[in-house]
Each structure stands twice: as C-alpha cells, then as structure tokens.
C-alpha cells in the first residue's frame, strides 16, 4: 500500500462545470427530494455541491494512496446556493492528515467558485486510510462538528424518515456520476467483504440533508449555511432500507441557528454521528 503525504498543500483543479436546471432536477429526483424548487432544478439540493469538486477531491486523495479509503466525514460550508446558469470552478487541496487507532485520516479541502470568482462553497472531505501509519498530525485540521451527548438527552426537535428504493444507488450513481462498483454490483461489494450493495456516503448524507431542509430550513435550502456529519457505519441497500434523521436544536451560534443531528438506518444502527446543520436566522 502506498501512502504519500508529499503533496501536502498542493492544489488540483477541475475544468469548468456549467449548471443547468436538468442536471439539478435529475439530482433531486435521484435522492427523492420532494422540495419543488429542487425538483424543478431552480436551486440545487444541498449535497449536490459535492458533485463539481468530487474529481479534484478524489484525485487529491489518490495522490496520497491508491488503497480503498472510507469516506469518514464531510463538512459543507455554503456561501451561496448553486443555481442554473452558474459556471463553477473547483480547487482541492491536500489539507492535512491525522493518525487514529484504525489508520490515518486524510483531509482534503475543496473550494468551489463561480465565474466571477465568488466563493460558492467550501468543503472538508475526510477519508480513513485503514492500516496506514503516521507518527503525528501534519498540515491543518478540519473544523469541529461535535454533537455532545448532553444535547441528545433532550427529545429531538424534529425527525424524519425517508425510505430507500431498490434502485436508489443506481439513480444516485447516474445523478452524481459516482459509479463506484460496490454501490452498483453485488459481486463487487462482496469482493470488499460487504454482504449487500453499499449506499454512497453522500447519498445517505443527502437523505439527512432532506430532513434538515424540510424540518429546520422551512423548505428553503438557501438558508442552509453548513451541513456536516461523520459516517459512523456503512449503509447497505437492503429491502426496506430507510434513513431516519433526528434533529436537536443547539440554539444560536455565530449568528445562525444550529442543529445537531444523527441519522440511523432501518435496523436502528446510527450511520451518521456528530451531524451539524447551521441555518441562517
């Protein structure tokens, strides 16, 4: 297994990504997002923001290792929503690496800007390279997003459950252009030791994002300023699979309303921990 941090701080870019209504609408349909503005393609579902910089992010990770890496955490910071007609340009930077008992957590930071060079969003992508070793942290860390147990002692402010369909990963693969074989072919999933098709981490996060927009943004995704979460267990595309998101109000933080959340699968397994959503007041 190769593990090489020599490109720390280096930047990768992707060619122009033009945005149109059809692509946004296809994405919303693929995650069964029922928001009319998302379904019409007038504004992007929040997790769509992952699509434009995905290549630069993954290539940056691949500069470090060719080994299989678990998507550990994702943290979107939104500056403006993605709308049709925008021309997006993305940069990804190898941001840092942190040792952990299971391996090394590699952090890639991406920036998406529009054609006028205005920031559209920033993202911290965190992947766990199992088996890799590192004596001490290098580079920068990603911002924290912890949901303290004390906050969860209160009853949830809101919760929502959305079912997954048998073709959910196939639809998401096409909408995001993320065709990872273990999300689409059982034999590929089994090769990696999984009993069923794996659900894309971003698809699970997109389901949590639906709950956030529906329950705490009043259906208006333009109000969402931050969406973060830690993937704590794999989600499998089993019959009857569904994602339940529970949200707790954390009160105002930095001039925004903050909510903590957790997502669990149909079996009750918590699949996203330390979820955080910040909403413009």
């Amino acid at each position, binding site marked *: 297994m190769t593990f090489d941090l020599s490109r720390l701080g280096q930047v990768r870019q992707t*060619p122009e*990504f*033009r945005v*149109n209504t059809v692509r946004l609408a296809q994405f919303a349909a693929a995650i069964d997002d029922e928001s009319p503005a998302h379904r019409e393609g007038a504004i992007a579902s929040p997790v769509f923001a992952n*699509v434009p910089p*995905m*290549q630069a992010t993954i290539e940056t990770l691949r500069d470090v290792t060719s080994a299989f890496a678990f998507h550990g955490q994702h943290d979107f910071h939104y500056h403006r929503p993605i709308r049709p*007609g925008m021309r997006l340009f993305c940069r990804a930077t190898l941001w840092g690496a942190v040792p952990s008992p299971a391996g090394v957590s590699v952090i890639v930071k991406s920036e998406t800007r529009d054609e006028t060079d205005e920031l559209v969003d920033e993202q911290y992508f965190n992947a766990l390279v199992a088996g890799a070793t590192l004596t001490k942290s290098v580079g920068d860390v990603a911002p924290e997003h912890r949901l303290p147990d004390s906050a969860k002692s209160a009853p949830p402010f809101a919760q929502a459950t959305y079912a997954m369909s048998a073709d959910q990963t196939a639809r998401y693969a096409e909408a995001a*252009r993320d*065709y990872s074989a273990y999300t689409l072919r059982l034999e590929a999933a089994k090769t990696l030791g999984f009993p069923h098709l794996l659900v894309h981490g971003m698809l699970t996060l997109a389901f949590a994002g639906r709950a956030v927009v529906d329950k705490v943004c009043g259906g208006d995704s333009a109000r969402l300023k931050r969406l973060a979460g830690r993937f704590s267990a794999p989600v499998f595309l089993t019959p009857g699979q569904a994602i339940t998101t529970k949200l707790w109000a954390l009160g105002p933080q930095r001039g925004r309303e903050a909510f903590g959340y957790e997502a669990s699968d149909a079996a009750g397994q918590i699949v996203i921990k330390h979820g955080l959503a910040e909403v413009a007041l």
Partner: protein
Amino acid sequence: MTAKVAHPGIGPSWSAVKHQTCAALVAEGCRDEPERPAIIVEDGLVVTRRELLQRVEHFSGYLKPRLKPGDRVVVMLENRVEFMIALFALMANRATLVSIAPTAQVHDAGHILKDSQPVLAIAGEVQSAVLEQLRPECPSLRDILVTSGEEPDGLGRYEREAERIPLAEAPCRRDDILTVFYTSGTTGAPKGCMLDHGWWLRVVDLDQVLFPRSWQDRQLCCLPFYYTDPAIQLMTSLTTRGTLIAMRRFSVSRFWDVVRKYDASEMLSIASIPALLLKGEPGPRERDHRMRAVVHAGLPKPLHRQLVDRFGFPWYDQYGSTEGGIMSRVPVDLAEELVGSGSIGVEPPDVIIRVVDDQDQDVSTGEIGEALIGGPDLFRGYLNRPEVTAEAMRGGWYHSGDLVRRDERGLLYFVGRKKDMIRRSGENIAAAEVEAALRSHPKILEAAVIPVPDELRGEEVKAYIQLKDGLSRSDLPPDQITAFCRARLASYKAPRYIEYRREFELTPSMRVQKQSLIKEGPDLTVNAWDRETG
C-alpha cells in the same frame, strides 16, 4: 516582432496518453470504472464499460481463429454500438477495419471491396444485401457476419460461441494498421487512407492536451460512426472517465433534448450542423444546458458570432484530416477574439504546418500557399497506391492540397482547395485566392470563382458576386470590382467575367456549390459582364 500565438498552458505531447496501443488504452479505460457508462445512445440504451469490454473480448475470441494479422474486414453499420465492438475486437486480433458508409450501394461499396480485398464483412441486414450482390467480384470475402436483434447484442450469437480473450493482453503493435477510411480526393476514385495505432493514440492525446476534460464531461457524437471522429470521441471518453452520448443521426428537432437529457458538455460538429442549429426554433432549452465547447472543422464565418451569442458556448474552429489528424485548432484563450475571423488557429504540440508555393518553397507571411503537414504519426499511406502516397508525402511532408495563409501572429486561415484552379495562358490561378480577395471588399458578401473555356487563353476567370443586403449592381459596378482585384492581386488573376447573384446554392458544408454554377449552361459568358467588351 508580433508575438506568436500558442495554445495556452497545455501539456506536451503524450502528457495525456501513455499507452503503446489502442488496445491497452481501451482495456484500461474500461477496467478502472467498470460500471460507468461507456456509451449512451439517444434512445436510452446504456452500455457500461464492463459490458463493452466483455462483448469486445468475446467477439475477439470468435474472430481469433478466423483472422490473421493484417487481414482486412469491412464494417458497414449504422450508428450502433456493435460498430465499436467490432473495431476493438478486430484491433485485438491485429486485423484492419475497412469502413464503408452504411448508405453505400453496389458502385461505391464495390470499389472499396475490390480495392481492399477483405476476408470478412460485418454488416447490418440492409447493408449485407448490398455486400451479397458484390460477392462474385470479391473472391477474398469468406463470410458476412450480420448484426441482428437487439442492440448491443447484434453480434451476440457470435460472442456467445467464444471464450473471452483479454483485451489488455492483445498482441497488437503500435504500427499495426487499425483502420482504412476511404477519402474522396478532388480527382480519381476514393483512396483507402491507412491509420495505425500511433495515429489514433496521437489524436486522442492531442485532443485531451488541447482541451482537458473532467469526469463530469460527456461528449456528444452526432456524426456517422463510419467516420474516424466517433471512435476518437469514444477513446477520449474512456480515458477521461467520460461517456459518449451518441445520436443515431444528427437532428435539429431532437438535438437540445438529447443534449439536456443526457447531459452533454461538448460536441464535434461538421458541415451544415451550425446552420441547421441556427434554423431551429429559438427557445429557452438552447440556453439551459451544460455544453461548454464545440469543435468544428471549417466554421462558416458569417454564422460564428450568432452561434456563440445564441447558444452561449465557444465554437473552436479546427483544421483536421484523415491523413494528418488534428493539424490546427483555435487556442481556447483566443476563441472570443477570433469569432468570425475565419482563423483555424495554430498547430498543436509537435505539428508543423508550412505554407508553400508550387515548388514547395515557403511563401511570405500573409501569402496564400498549400499547407504541408509535418509531425509524428501521420497516416501510413493510401492502400494499394504507393505512387499516390509518395506524391502526397514528397519531401517527408504531407501535401494537404489545401490553400491556407498565416498572419503575422502565426494564426492560420483556410482559403480553399488547391485543385480548384483556373489555368489561364499557362498560369495557375487559385479560385480560392481570387475569392478571398473579392470577399475582402466591404460591399461583397460572397463570391465564387470558376474557369470558363477561352479560345485564346485556354481558360478565363469568371466571378459570381453576391452583394451585401440592400446593395445592387449600381452600388458596386463590375469595373470597380476588377479594379479592386488588380490592386490586390497580379492583374492576370482579376476576373474577366462578372455576374451578380442574389444568392448561391450551398453545399452541406456551407460553401458555394460551384459545380451547379458550372452546369448552368453551355456558354457561361452569356449574360456576364466582360472586361474586354465592357
């Protein structure tokens, strides 16, 4: 000194493609992300990389006992995925695909069959009937494999007979002749242009070096598969985690729906496609898409600005040919500045274009001459035509037969075909050169120059003039036109005969249909103004 134009910030040759054969390129492009679609056809058929590779490898196994290296196989198919399966499976067996238009009939298909002596043919049901008729004239042809049934399973009954042969282990070599495409020159019967792996790899590499693509990009193909371009687009897509979106045939009415539904981000355009798109009913769909580039060979100058403004993406003019591959393209950073200029840009890395006179001597900046192409991995000659090949490649340069000029910044402009000549009193006059001079007049919209027979001088120059809208002959009388020409050209090149036209019949590539002008009457000097009689 004026600064010379270059393609901005691009990598060197072979920075995009490292493979030694197309088989290695295709195998790797299919292996890395097997579930990503390789091809999506406009009616909804999706073929993943895994399925494409599987079918190629099975069909390759079927072909193995039936072919030896260097064998030629005719492929005569419409825009179906089986065309690409056949191409890659033939390649794996070191055989050569000979491409025939699916619309060809006994005359044109017969010429190719007799010339190329194929051992096998792969054809659709309609096409196989044409080939069957020609069998008596082509004794080398042992078998015709007919595609039938649901695409992409048209060759399935052959695929299922055989074991897979891994494409990555195909024993092909870089100098194997992968394909023969028949090109119709201005004279004589079509010639089979032989292209090896090196040619294909070079074009795929240059296309990416000039225009980097992302995983989110999808190339739209609306050209016939029997051209080189669709397979280039597919190979480029396979190496950049892209997907080829294929139309059965170009259609204005379906165009924007296909672009939007399948998320095309670029396309390759030729001939009348720009004019047809501009004739389409305007609507919001044509601005709400993700297209970010079109590469077009021979963009009609007057349409260029409209295309960019109406559809909202750059149209890059390119100069390419089967023999020379990608010879010149407008640099991305100059696209806006050069809209409507008619420039075909500058050469990509390691291609050199010389502009020469009839003695192959370089002409001065701004002068019109023939484009000679130098560089690695040009075509490998014309099948069975060593003397024609030697003539075209004399001095080690490919003689394109195209007239171009280069300005002081190094930008190239296409002028016309060299064979389009008038021979007057022993002097050769390039029609394109006179037309270019005429078109530079501010009152002239379009001009066509043809030879008319002349007892004294052999041929004389006749010009047809289309004035700009609202102008008539009295605004620009013929004597002013000849005076204008004489101020810019040697006087023997100035037209003797001038005739005014309100419009011209155009070819599919939006050039004046000169053959129909020539066929208008037995004596084309009748009704024309004559410089000698006034």
